[in-house]
């Protein structure tokens, strides 16, 4: 009888598997990514290395000393105060991240976590940033999502392209997205400018592309304006998924179509816009094994780090970049994801 290894599935539940099954999942995962992204699959040595990480008998695995990377956070001040339900304010959360959790950076954010709703409370957000900057040593960014969906009726001024598209009103849906881009760019530039004026170490645009290619277009255009207005300021962009959805389909940035791009092309557009740190996301398939998911992520990440001139971080939150789709992902899976992405895909941060 074959020896069995304890592993995880994308839904976070553990299972016993064989060496042959792990190796087959690695081959299938890398082939899937290579085919979709038109990029090279993992080499035999890389697949062997990944197999050893997956099959390690230790519960937690780690990188060798000297190979550590930095860690950034989306929704920084939402984690402790809101998601964990700990009654503390945002300044306390920032200092807890810095002095108790040893975070390399953190961001201040509003509970709605989108640029649009920050506009009416910009003075209060600026005050919070200015106060926090007096007490914090670690880099403190301001973060939110472009979230183009907030610009559709009845909450916003634009027609809803998700309602227009099923009706076959393609031109109207495209026009609505183009209108939303203008509003979003204006709001992102307004909020980010104010937070930079209040001392923010950088600006994070998170979950970019959640509303499709128009979401990406708004983010890239806003960062281009901001990076010219505030040279030297760091901009971070975390993607919503591995593939830019073509909700519009014809939008371009610097003459290149945005829809359909995978991380190795997304990062080049981000770099051209002025982004300093690119956060790639690859969706976790909850019915596939950790080996399958991680082989896919490594294949995409390797291609992205190979072409990028800026740091590439892997978005290793719940349900992305190989992390199981659970609010409490298991530490054995998380540590394997980190080690594999650093040692094989050569990512610059998490």
């Amino acid at each position, binding site marked *: 009888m074959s020896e069995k290894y304890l592993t995880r599935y994308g839904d976070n539940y553990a299972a016993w598997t064989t060496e042959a099954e792990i190796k087959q999942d690695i081959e299938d995962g890398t082939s899937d990514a290579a085919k979709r992204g038109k990029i090279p699959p993992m080499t035999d040595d890389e697949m062997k290395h990944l197999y050893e990480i997956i099959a390690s008998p230790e519960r937690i695995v780690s990188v060798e000393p000297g190979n550590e990377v930095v*860690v950034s956070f989306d929704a920084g001040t939402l984690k402790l105060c809101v998601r964990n339900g700990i009654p503390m304010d945002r300044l306390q959360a920032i200092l807890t991240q810095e002095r108790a959790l040893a975070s390399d950076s953190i961001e201040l954010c509003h509970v709605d976590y989108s640029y649009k709703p920050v506009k009416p409370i910009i003075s209060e957000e600026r005050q919070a940033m200015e106060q926090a900057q007096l007490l914090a040593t670690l880099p403190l960014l301001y973060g939110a999502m472009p979230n183009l969906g907030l610009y559709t009726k009845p909450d916003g001024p634009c027609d809803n392209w998700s309602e227009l598209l099923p009706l076959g009103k393609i031109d109207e849906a495209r026009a609505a997205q183009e209108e939303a881009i203008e509003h979003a760019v204006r709001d992102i530039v307004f909020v980010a400018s104010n937070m930079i004026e209040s001392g923010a170490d950088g600006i994070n645009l998170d979950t970019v592309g959640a509303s499709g290619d128009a979401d990406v277009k708004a983010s890239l255009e806003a960062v281009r304006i901001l990076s010219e207005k505030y040279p030297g300021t760091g901009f971070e962009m975390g993607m919503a998924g591995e593939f830019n959805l073509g909700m519009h389909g014809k939008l371009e940035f610097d003459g290149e179509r945005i829809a359909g791009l995978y991380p190795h092309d997304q990062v080049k557009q981000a770099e051209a816009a002025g982004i300093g740190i690119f956060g790639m996301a690859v969706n976790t398939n909850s019915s596939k094994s950790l080996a399958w998911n991680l082989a896919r992520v490594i294949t995409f990440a390797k291609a992205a780090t190979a072409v990028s001139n800026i740091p590439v971080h892997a978005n290793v939150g719940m349900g992305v970049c190989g992390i199981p789709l659970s609010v409490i992902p298991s530490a054995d899976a998380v540590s394997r994801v980190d080690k594999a992405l650093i040692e094989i895909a050569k990512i610059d941060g*998490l």
Partner: protein
Amino acid sequence: MAVTHESTAGIGGIRGAGDLVFRMELQKMKINEAKKYVADKLGAKVSDLADCAVMKDLREDLNIGTTQSRPDAGLGIQTKFRIADILGIKINSVEKFKKEAGI
């Protein structure tokens, strides 16, 4: 999960030199370049950056903040004045402080 990431692969924030390396990544340096840059500026080895024993002594000597609260030691914005000087970069909150304090 943040704790797992830091334990597995993180530089350890102000336990080590993670905050300093992150500041250089924000300047578009990739990880190895950023770590070497910071190590050179600190007069340390790259492998020291995540070593909390080495970095505690170094950070206390340079007065650039540690996880422990101490009397007569820099805190927050005070440490960032020194970090900006050591790394040779402008830190936005330091520039803001100078402006508001009339320095």
